[in-house]
């Protein structure tokens, strides 16, 4: 408090005026602020640095292993030599099957939720609840589910009903793909809905006002415009499906197979599972290390390229959405 202030107080005793604000020293405030900003920036930097270290390490030690021979031949000598072609083939078959099973249903569900359903109906709410919770179920639980439902329940009963030897009642490409499809269902639903949301409302009105039915509107106006978004979701689910190991460990992936799967009821080798196998079950760690790094590089390349494509597509979609508002 300085003197002028106290003089003023003396003159009007009824309402003691407030003294001038005595803020804490602006210098210290600024320093705390600067410290906070630096700390926050440092956190962001740390995350990027950790990512860089991981990717750097993998690329530095791994890129030499990735040769044409490596990606085109099968493992040899107890998986201490040779390539990973069967694993690449298996992973690709897996995700292709998964997409076939997943995308029609995921897109259909999103169309229903966004274009048809009353938003306050119990079914809509239940579906949304299930979708968000499905997205949070641990992947190992999906694996258990695949084992308990697809293999032990559906597969066994199928074998019994068809009078077959154990054909479907055991781990296979099909069951692994279906397990992954369920795991990725929320991804496709959410991205497709986002894509439908990006189609301006006046497009629907224009179509309906011309006497198109709701389904015609969906089929000829909305789906073509939502296609990039649907593709984004599909690619994201493929990227995720290619990298997941826990759900397919007991539903279809094989440690080692001397042949390629030629039917959906066959087991298969998988890139991610191969990484796990090489890293933890190798009889000769040093000998398999280059193979291990090579496999990781291939797996990362696959998922990153897919993710990158999805990010690009999504950015375009978002831009369109922003351009409208």
């Amino acid at each position, binding site marked *: 408090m300085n003197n002028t202030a106290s003089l003023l107080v003396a003159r009007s005793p009824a309402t003691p005026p407030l003294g001038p604000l005595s803020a804490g020293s602006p210098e210290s405030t600024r320093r705390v602020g600067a410290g906070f900003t630096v700390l926050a920036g440092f956190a962001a930097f740390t995350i990027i640095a950790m990512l860089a270290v991981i990717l750097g390490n993998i690329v530095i030690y791994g890129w030499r292993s990735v040769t044409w021979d490596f990606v085109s031949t099968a493992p040899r000598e107890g998986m201490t030599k040779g390539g990973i072609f069967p694993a690449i083939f298996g992973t690709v078959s897996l995700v292709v099957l998964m997409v076939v099973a997943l995308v029609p249903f995921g897109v259909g569900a999103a169309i229903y939720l966004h274009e048809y359903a*009353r*938003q306050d109906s119990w079914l809509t709410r239940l579906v949304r609840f299930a979708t968000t919770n499905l997205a949070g179920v641990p992947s190992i639980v999906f694996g258990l589910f695949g084992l308990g439902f697809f293999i032990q329940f559906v597969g066994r009963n199928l074998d019994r009903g068809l009078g077959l030897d154990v054909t479907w009642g055991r781990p296979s490409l099909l069951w692994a793909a279906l397990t992954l499809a369920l795991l990725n269902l929320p991804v496709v639903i959410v991205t497709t809905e986002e894509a439908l949301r990006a189609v*301006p409302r*006046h*497009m*629907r*009105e*224009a*179509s*309906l*006002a*011309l*006497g*198109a*039915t709701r389904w*015609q509107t969906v089929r*000829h*106006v909305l789906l*073509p*415009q939502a296609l990039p978004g649907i593709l984004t979701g599909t690619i994201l689910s493929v990227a995720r499906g290619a990298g997941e190991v826990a759900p397919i460990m007991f539903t279809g992936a094989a440690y080692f197979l001397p042949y390629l799967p030629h039917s959906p009821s066959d087991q298969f080798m998988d890139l991610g599972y191969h990484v796990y196998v090489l890293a933890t079950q190798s009889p000769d760690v040093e000998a398999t290390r280059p193979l291990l790094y090579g496999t990781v590089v291939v797996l990362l390349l696959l998922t990153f390229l897919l993710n990158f494509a999805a990010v690009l597509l999504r950015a375009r979609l978002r831009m369109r959405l922003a351009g409208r508002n």
Partner: protein
Amino acid sequence: MPGNEVIPMEAPVVIPPIPEAEERNGELGPPDEAHRGKPFPRDEVRTAGPVAKGGIRNGVRPPTEERLDDAAIEAILRVREFSLFYGQTQALKKVSLDIHPRAVTAIIGPSGCGKSTLLRSFNRMNDLIPGIRTEGEITLRDLNLRAATTDVVDLRRRIGMVFQRPNPFPKSIFDNVVFGLRMLGLRNRAELEARAEESLRRAALWEEVKDSLGRSALALSGGQQQRLCIARCLAVQPEIILMDEPTSALDPAATARIEELLIRLKANYTIVIVTHNMQQAARVSSFSAFLLNGELIEYDETIRIFTNPRVQATEDYITGRFG
């Protein structure tokens, strides 16, 4: 869509002429022949005015029963005591009016008065908005529009709509024009092309786009896009065309072309246009309905509304005192 290779017109396709209204009436209503070209007698027109609950509103002469009947024969679209609620708020309050065939009817009023809502009630576009409730009656000839059994899809084929902002689909010009036809199941390429040309000609766009039908519709200017939307609407041969401020997103030159077009179209079509532009209403419409706070204040021949309105509120609005 490879829309640019237009099949030469000597293709043996006979386009049936776009029929006049009486052909559609057939068994449904009296032939329009009697009214063609005949100016609406002033007295008769006035009967098409608002039918307030109490009969009299602000000096509007109450229509007698017989006049109402006259008007009913006259009208293609009849609105009686129509109310619309968004949840708790009432957006339209017991609106009654008749839309006359082969004329332009303008719905005017300040923003938020419910004119677009009224227009969108005519093709049940409001169905898309959840929480809407309606009362009263709207009939297209003998078809009760509000009935749950009414085939909304077919209704929208009979009552076309052009929107505030040009909203062509991100497809080729050709695909835009024939969209409605394709949705009807028309697959014959030659017929589609013939109808596309016909519609584009009617919408005064053919000369500008005939060489580039395969181009994206989004590449057109705003005015061209709107005329494309009109062509797209004409292609399905609607009986009535609703226009929701069709020029509000356009520059004056494009607006003038659309207005020209409207005046040409009214010889064959029934047009209801919502506009906030008073001069536009005066230029293109034969009848005008003035809406205020969801109530129909006055409905009469446009010339009458603009020169000698019977209600003070109409005059205030026309002369720009509010709105």
